């Protein structure tokens, strides 16, 4: 029995050890990018092998953006972080794992693709949801993850806030009341975007899911056009999910060159095409033009315009005892 056990352990360790590429990177990402990075990693590995002759394996870890940042802070050895919003990478940077000016190291705010938020409703839109206003109406069940742990939820919370501000006569107070009314309609807060999507599409809870645009498309593709409709609001927030190399980890592991090549690959035509095919809005104008029929045209505002950047927004809305706590605890 004992011999058998040691035998098993030995063979397991052996087989784990033998299976390893020349270079291994760990990409710690947020929830809805699972399919995107599965494709990116495959394409990049092929390109990297062709160009350098070395095999590369990119391992993935996914979860709510805030939670993932926390894991990296606690020592999860990510070579690159590809999170839902800049603030989560700022948090990691604050603890010294990467330079404070990380967002200037890659083009376009270090966000190789953008996305936005749309509403996924049940087929035929039985509750008649057309715009943000309809989410605040009594009797409408809204599904969104927890802004404390999910990047997507923070984006769409600010999307609702911005919408209310931009309405005629909109003030901070009216925006607060509006967002409060929406969250009063939320029966369950999952920790990440994917959890919320599963709650809505698989467990059939709620009337409307405030979803990342790519999650909404993916749900329709997975479950059939006969089950859900996408409703595009009149105006919504432009989400810029950023990417960064984690200096502390790559310098220790000696993987800086590979990690930088990996992130730059997302900006190439090939990378941009993959992003567009996974329903992320490409930055490259040519690729964007090619896929312009895929993405609904919608008026977008940025976080810098309306909220003065992530640091300000995070502190005011999502920090401990911030506006969200005030709204949700009452």
């Amino acid at each position, binding site marked *: 029995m004992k011999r058998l056990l040691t035998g098993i*352990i030995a063979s397991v*360790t052996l087989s784990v050890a033998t299976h390893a590429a020349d270079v291994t990177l760990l990409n710690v990402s947020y929830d809805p990018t699972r399919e995107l990075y599965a494709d990116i990693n495959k394409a990049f590995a092929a390109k990297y092998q062709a160009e350098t002759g070395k095999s590369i394996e990119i*391992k993935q870890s996914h979860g709510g953006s805030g939670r993932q940042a926390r894991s990296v802070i*606690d*020592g999860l050895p990510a070579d690159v972080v590809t999170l839902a919003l800049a603030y989560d990478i700022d948090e990691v940077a604050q603890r010294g794992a990467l330079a404070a000016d990380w967002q200037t190291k890659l083009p376009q705010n270090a966000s190789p693709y953008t996305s936005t938020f749309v509403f996924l409703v049940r087929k035929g839109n039985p509750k008649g949801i057309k715009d943000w206003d309809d989410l605040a109406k009594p009797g409408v069940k809204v599904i969104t993850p927890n802004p404390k742990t999910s990047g997507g939820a923070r984006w769409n919370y600010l999307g609702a806030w911005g919408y209310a501000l931009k309405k005629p006569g909109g003030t901070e107070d009216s925006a607060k009341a509006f967002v409060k009314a929406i969250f009063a309609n939320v029966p369950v807060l999952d920790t990440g975007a*994917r959890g919320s999507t599963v709650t809505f599409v698989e467990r059939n809870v709620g009337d409307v899911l405030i979803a990342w645009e790519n999650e909404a498309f993916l749900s329709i593709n997975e479950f059939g056009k006969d089950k859900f409709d996408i409703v595009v609001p009149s105006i919504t927030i432009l989400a810029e999910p950023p990417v960064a190399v984690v200096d502390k980890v790559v310098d220790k592991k000696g993987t800086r060159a590979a990690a930088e090549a990996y992130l730059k690959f997302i900006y190439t035509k090939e990378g941009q095409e993959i992003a567009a095919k996974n329903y992320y809005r490409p930055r490259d104008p040519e690729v964007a033009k090619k896929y312009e029929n895929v993405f609904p045209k919608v008026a977008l505002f940025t976080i810098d315009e309306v909220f003065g950047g992530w640091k300000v927004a995070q502190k005011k809305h999502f920090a401990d005892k911030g506006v969200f706590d005030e709204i949700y605890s009452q």
Partner: protein
Amino acid sequence: MSVAAGTLATRTPSSSQDSRRRIVAEPAPVRWLIVGVALLFLTVFLVVPLVAVFYQAFSRGVWPYLGALTHPDAVAAIKLTLMVAAISVSLNLVFGLIAAWAIAKFEFRGKSVLITLIDLPFSISPVISGLVFVLLFGAQGFFGGYLQEHDVRIIFALPGIVLATVLVTFPFVARELIPLMQQQGTQEEEAAISLGASGLQTFFRVTLPNVKWALLYGVLLCNARAMGEFGAVSVVSGHIRGETNTMPLHIEILYNEYQFMASFAVASLLALLALVTLIAKVVLEKYVGAE
């Protein structure tokens, strides 16, 4: 499935043996009603979900099922789970035996505190069991700086997963042994020592053989929990695919990626491992009963 149903069927009558029947003396309809309710409850809450898992797993046939189980990430998860279970069960076998021995055979101050402490993992949430290790060994944690300097990875790697599993499954072996050892008392050991046996001889020739079935039983329970632990492991895993995902975590990931068939395929394997444990347990009980 038929195995689980079979054990249920054979076990229910054994609890209403003749001697008891006379004492209870309930009319037959009442007895049947009680048995029926129990069976119905078990069917609804255990058998049906179990059938559903296997049904979903094989919903696209045998080849996709095998494909899901032989996917590199699944294989890595299965290996990791078996390895974590093997290490944590071995550790808890030793710890549990020592703790039970100390408690049952010796008198010392603070004994009741120790008994309570052993039970603690039963009562604290697994999330806490995971978080304590993040607080201790995380980069911002108590030993974080030292570990990083020396390039030792505890959390988000195998050691952390093992630690969390050991903590959660600690009570199983000890809890199984303590009552039995207390009941057996110290007379046999005293006899052995008075006949000239050394401490170790006494332990291996008298104490251990006396508790071997209970020990094996505790190990089986411990193993079942070790393979199935989700909460504590989820906190310390870091969810790196093909590296730090155990089977329960892998099942959740597949489910969240809309790969329901694959998710249930891995779940069915986990359920199968649990069933094997259960059967081993029943066989053991028969042995113990015969002795």
